[in-house]
């Protein structure tokens, strides 16, 4: 019995740890993918150089959280890993290829000899960032709407992931990342470009809120279990603060985005907004890792596997957060126009 108790606790701990890794990924790569999504609206070379420089020191580390998400899922919930990835084969492959384009654009853009090839890598950066965000959103939607399982493998068809709901979540994530990119740039830039960024922050902020509303309104109707969790009294009292907090943050964002002096506030609020969305998703899905049939307990690897990793993770994750924070600290502050690149 003791062993069973231990394994259940570890499974919950791993679910939380992985959720945390994915959240960190969404926040960190969210703003740097968002910059790629905003790129088309900033056409001059100076603007684009500045925007890219604002994330160039950190994008490598940001993307590593995605590897931790994939690797952690493989290790802690191998059954989920082996069902989700074939089920979402096209969007996952599209995301991986898109990330290749945008990752190399960071380096290649500066090496391109001709204006033509430089523009080519700009397009790769824009396309890669947008497609990666879209594919991540579609993945989220496809997971939330449920995946057909037969035995220990994916039991559905090649196009099951493609539905109006997954399209909506795909677009929602693109808009959300663009919003986060805009609040990041608001924090890192000054002058005319900052004023321009703020206008985009407002537009994408509104679009993000509308998306959140639509996804939130649609989700309870995907599965009865979701509906009961959000709308049956008194159980619904538990998640009730989430939408209220979202509304509060939306209001604070609206009032702080143009305020000078504390430019980090809107960015932090955006991170909190994404955090609340994440909590909302967790409330709907819990305890499933693949709705509607596979729970975290079904998919868990043996206690011996989870424990072995957990011992390391509990020590290493804080260390990683520490030196990641240090790297951000080294490159903190505002980028000056005409400074910070060659």
């Amino acid at each position, binding site marked *: 019995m003791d062993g069973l108790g231990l394994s259940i606790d570890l499974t919950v701990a791993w679910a939380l740890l992985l959720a945390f890794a994915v959240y960190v990924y969404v926040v960190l790569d969210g703003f740097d993918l968002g910059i790629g999504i905003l790129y088309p609206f900033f056409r001059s070379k100076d603007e684009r*150089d500045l925007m890219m*420089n604002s994330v*160039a020191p*950190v994008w490598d580390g940001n*993307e*590593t959280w*995605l*590897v*931790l998400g*994939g*690797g*952690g*899922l*493989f*290790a*802690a919930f*191998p*059954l989920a*890993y*082996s069902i*989700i*990835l*074939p089920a979402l*084969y*096209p969007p996952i*492959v599209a995301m991986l290829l898109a990330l*290749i*384009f945008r*990752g*190399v654009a*960071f*380096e*290649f853009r*500066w*090496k391109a000899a001709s204006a033509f090839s430089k523009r080519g890598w700009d397009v790769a950066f824009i396309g890669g960032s947008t497609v990666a965000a879209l594919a991540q959103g579609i993945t989220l939607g496809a997971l939330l709407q449920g995946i057909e399982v037969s035995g220990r*493998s994916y039991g559905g068809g090649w196009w099951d992931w493609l539905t109006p709901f997954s399209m909506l979540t795909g677009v929602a994530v693109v808009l959300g990342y663009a919003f986060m990119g805009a609040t990041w740039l608001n924090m890192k830039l000054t002058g005319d470009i900052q004023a321009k960024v703020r206008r985009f922050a407002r537009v994408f902020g509104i679009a993000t809120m509308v998306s959140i509303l639509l996804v939130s309104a649609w989700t309870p109707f995907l599965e009865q279990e979701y509906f009961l969790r959000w709308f049956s009294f008194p159980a619904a009292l538990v998640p009730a603060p989430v939408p209220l907090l979202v509304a509060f943050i939306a209001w604070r964002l609206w009032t702080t985005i143009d305020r000078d002096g504390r430019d980090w506030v809107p960015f932090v609020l955006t991170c909190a907004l994404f955090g609340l969305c994440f909590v909302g998703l967790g409330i709907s899905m819990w305890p499933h890792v693949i709705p509607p049939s596979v729970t975290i307990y079904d998919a868990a*690897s*043996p206690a*011996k*596997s989870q424990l*072995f*990793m957990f011992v*390391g*993770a509990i020590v*290493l994750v804080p260390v*990683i957060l520490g*030196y990641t924070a*240090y*790297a951000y600290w*080294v*490159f903190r*502050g*505002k*980028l*000056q126009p*005409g*400074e*910070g*690149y*060659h």
Partner: protein
Amino acid sequence: MDTLFFGLDAVTLARIQFGFTVAFHFIFPAFTIGLASFLAVLNGWYLWSKDEAYLNLFNYWVKIFAITFAMGVVSGIVMSYQFGTNWSVFSDKTGPVLGPLMAYEVLTAFFLEAGFLGIMLFGRNKVGPGLHMTATAMVAVGTAISATWILSVNSWMHTPAGYAINDVGQFVPENWLEVIFNPSFPYRLAHTLTAAYLTTAFIVGGVGAWHLLSGRGHHRGVRKMFSMAMWMAALVAPLQVVIGHEHGLNTYEYQPTKVLAMEGHFESYDNGVPLILFGIPDQEAGEMRYELSIPKIGGPILNKGWNAQMDGLDTVPDAEEPPVAIVFWSFRIMVGLGFAMVGIGLWSLWTRYKGRLYDEVWLHRAALAMGPSGLVAVIAGWITTEVGRQPYTVYGELLTVNSTSPLDASAVGASLIAFIVIYFLVFGAGVGYLIKLMLKTPERAPYEDDIDYGPIRSAGLVPGVQQPAPQGRQSGQPAE
């Protein structure tokens, strides 16, 4: 799945896709593992000796490192998801054992590399020499830690140990130390890390040789890089022959079929084992055509007597044989290049002794030709070991045909084409940029060129932190 895509089934396509993406990926870390250590040495040497030539060399190679590393990162993310997309049954079954090792790779290596890379590339003037050196060393250590974990994973698939099989057919850990330090791991790790260092040495040597051949023999940086690379070749290539031999003996102990395919031994021998140098393997007929061999010495090479008796592939059921021709030829390519590396190393020692290291044109031509030899040898060696353990993914336990995802051939085929087109396009361009950088001389550049290596990862004026030489940077003009 029964469907075909241009005559190929889903399993074959998944294997081609994995082989293609991992071979492409492997090229980059094979180079950056050695290059990261080389950069740490250059930086340390510069700090210790204050000799600007080492700083210039650091700044020269760090640009090349940044591009190669970026390509390694993005092609590596693909690998971490491909286990699930194309090999879901394998993932479900091996996840409890292999997943934690990969998770540890992410936690102990990937974050370390990525976290300190920005500081290594662009932080010299922001954090001071000590912390910058630390960051550079962390990146180098990270690459080696990463290789350690992933080679442990790979070795476990060759020589599984420390596991049991549970009631749903998953491999589950019994003893982590036996899993991690499985029988082939120490040999594979030593052989692969050494190969990575040699790969870097020959690329650096080839670049140095090119500049020497272009009449830049007076240039200190060029001379130093060539000299350092030739020392590596002279010292490490012979060592690699010994390590490779030991690795082969270990393989013969645990995967004898693979060694039989490498050596081309279709027949059994009663009285002495020949060493087959060349021949055309005919697997269907079970014989080596046009065989060119030396009698008797194959025995001692495998730690057997001169007149040893040995079972050949004729004693192995056909279904358990790997494709012999691929293994036989890729092994010969790797070994041939290995001995050529030893030859270059010895030749360089001779010319160095004669005082003609920077003047011996034929040595420079040979070193230039051998520039990519490490990459070719690494890929050939990897093909030898991976094709050689077929038909299994987990040797002796899980067949390759039983490891794949339930996907249609058309799905795997379409994604394979996308990977091939995009990899050649993107990484082809990347290799082009690398070669362009390598063709420049490591001059003591004017300041602006010092920071030519890409996006400056700087957040600008930071109170209390020293700014790099300010002139020309505050004026707002793009100094390109």
